[in-house]
């Protein structure tokens, strides 16, 4: 298909788990292997316990305490993140790859204004002064279609609705200008009309910036309508991966088939 230089993220035989009290590793990920091509909108889909979120957190190096990887590689633009110099990896986070999370209201710091937080990220990644950073932050809020951005800059997260907060998170992610943006259940818990708006926005931002996106979700409907490449996970394993059309129209894996029919609520027997 494509040359390997076109691959943004390449995860190979990744395994890991939580350490229990006897220092035994309880496996959570087993031999997870998939790759994401540059410019696509990819998705990792699975139910709870599938390991989809922990896979994404592993890529960012933000796994919770107690979790450790035991084997495998995570190559970002050809370089293995796991063996890379930590200083260089830190530089990549935000700029190279970034992530937004499910509950956007909780993902914003409650004691700072939304504008301060976006401007802070702008200043970390772009070499500009305080005033210019604020101006760019306001511009970003406008780009994610937050009405009255100047007023919204001065507000605190609790004054934002869930949908608005998720837009602010996207603005913050854009401030990093990442090449790969991972979105962990970005619309879960939002109303369907808001969800559709946010997904439309993500598609537009992606088209404008050329970044690669990877959507982590449990909702096959969202995947079918928004993505062109899918990885299906279940209990820490990749069941199937490939193009969206192929997997949804002609799934080969029995779990994938079941998941599709459950999502459509049609009987299979």
């Amino acid at each position: 298909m494509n040359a390997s230089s076109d691959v943004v993220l390449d995860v190979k035989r990744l395994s890991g788990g939580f350490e229990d009290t006897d220092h035994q590793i309880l496996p959570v990920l087993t031999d997870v292997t998939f790759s994401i091509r540059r410019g696509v909108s990819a998705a990792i889909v699975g139910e709870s316990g599938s390991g989809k979120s922990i896979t994404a957190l592993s890529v960012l190096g933000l796994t919770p305490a107690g979790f450790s990887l035991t084997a495998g590689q995570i190559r970002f633009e050809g370089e293995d993140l796991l063996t890379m110099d930590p200083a260089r990896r830190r530089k990549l986070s935000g700029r190279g790859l970034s992530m937004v999370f499910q509950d956007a209201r909780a993902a914003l710091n409650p004691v700072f204004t939304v504008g301060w937080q976006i401007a802070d990220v702008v200043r970390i990644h772009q070499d500009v002064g305080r005033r210019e950073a604020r101006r760019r932050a306001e511009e970003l809020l406008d780009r994610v279609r937050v009405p009255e951005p100047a007023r919204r800059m001065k507000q605190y997260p609790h004054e934002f609705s869930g949908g608005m907060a998720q837009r602010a998170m996207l603005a913050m992610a854009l401030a990093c200008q990442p090449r790969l943006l991972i979105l962990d259940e970005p619309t879960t818990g939002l109303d369907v009309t808001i969800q559709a708006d946010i997904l439309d926005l993500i598609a537009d931002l992606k088209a404008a910036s050329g970044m690669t996106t990877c959507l982590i979700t449990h909702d096959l409907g969202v995947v079918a309508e928004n993505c062109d490449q899918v990885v299906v996970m279940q209990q820490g394993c990749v069941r199937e991966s490939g193009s969206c059309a192929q997997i949804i129209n002609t799934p080969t894996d029995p779990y994938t088939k079941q998941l599709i029919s459950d999502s459509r609520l049609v009987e299979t027997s």
Partner: protein
Amino acid sequence: MITTPTPPVLDIQHLHKEFRLRGTGRDRVLTAVDEVSFTIHAGQTVALVGESGSGKSTIARCITRITEPTSGDVLVEGRSIIKMPSRKLIDIYRSLQMVFQDPNSSLDPRKTARATLDEPLRLHTSLTSHQREQRIRELLAEVDLSDHLIDRLPRQLSGGQRQRLGIARAMAVDPRIILLDEPTASLDVSVRGQIIRLLERLQENKGIAYLFISHDLGVVRRISDRVLVMYLGTIVEEGPTEEVFTHPVHPYTQSLLSAAPLVEVGRRRERVRLAGEIPSPVDLPAGCRLVGRCPVATTACATTEPSLLNVTGSHRAACPVALDMQQVPST
């Protein structure tokens, strides 16, 4: 309407619920449910759909009098419960039960499955402890929970098992109608399918009526006979499920249905877009609630509140503008 010989199991008449908000300045009024009426007959499933703030959960809470409605009436098998003193409500709860959204918080974390099911049997029936034990096992079997789970605490059960236990608890007193408040919202899709099938089977066997409250349009389409679409405390459209899903009339219904993702690959369907987000239900203005967001709104919409008008048969919608457009033969 033709009067049926038996009264409906649930008859909601002009149900209204306001909350007073204290704040700086004058006190404001939040209208959560505004003059809502509908009926449910034996063995029927009626779905209440809407987004957050639509008041659908408040309706369930008013029907059970967990929250006291401001005005209106609720009749369960013909008996009005609104003026009933609260100690008499226990009789109503023998016919009317509820399954809650979040099985994690609707089960007492310190009570085993047995204790959870024993409680309604002890309080509602005069069964001996031996009979109750037998009934508990029957109930567990009815919801496909195996016997060995009987001494588990909620946290030792999976999400799906907890929701089955919640359903078993509602079934314990053999109710005529069960209110289901987002019963599948917190479940994985595979478990969701199982719970839906279980609910369908129980209805078939026992003729229970359901009021199914959900924002999951896929589930609603599958399980319900009739659907009521709510927006900011009012019903904007109601009708037979397939009719509403295939021929939505109200712009809000159209927007809602077109936003729901389907598991189909290909171009995204053309969305009916509404401007902005749902406004706050505080101090609602006169006129149609969708004014300001609606693509077809006229000046008249801002002044007169539309009432439900017949579309076809029992399909009704609260939008004269959209109805007029329907009358015009399509081009």
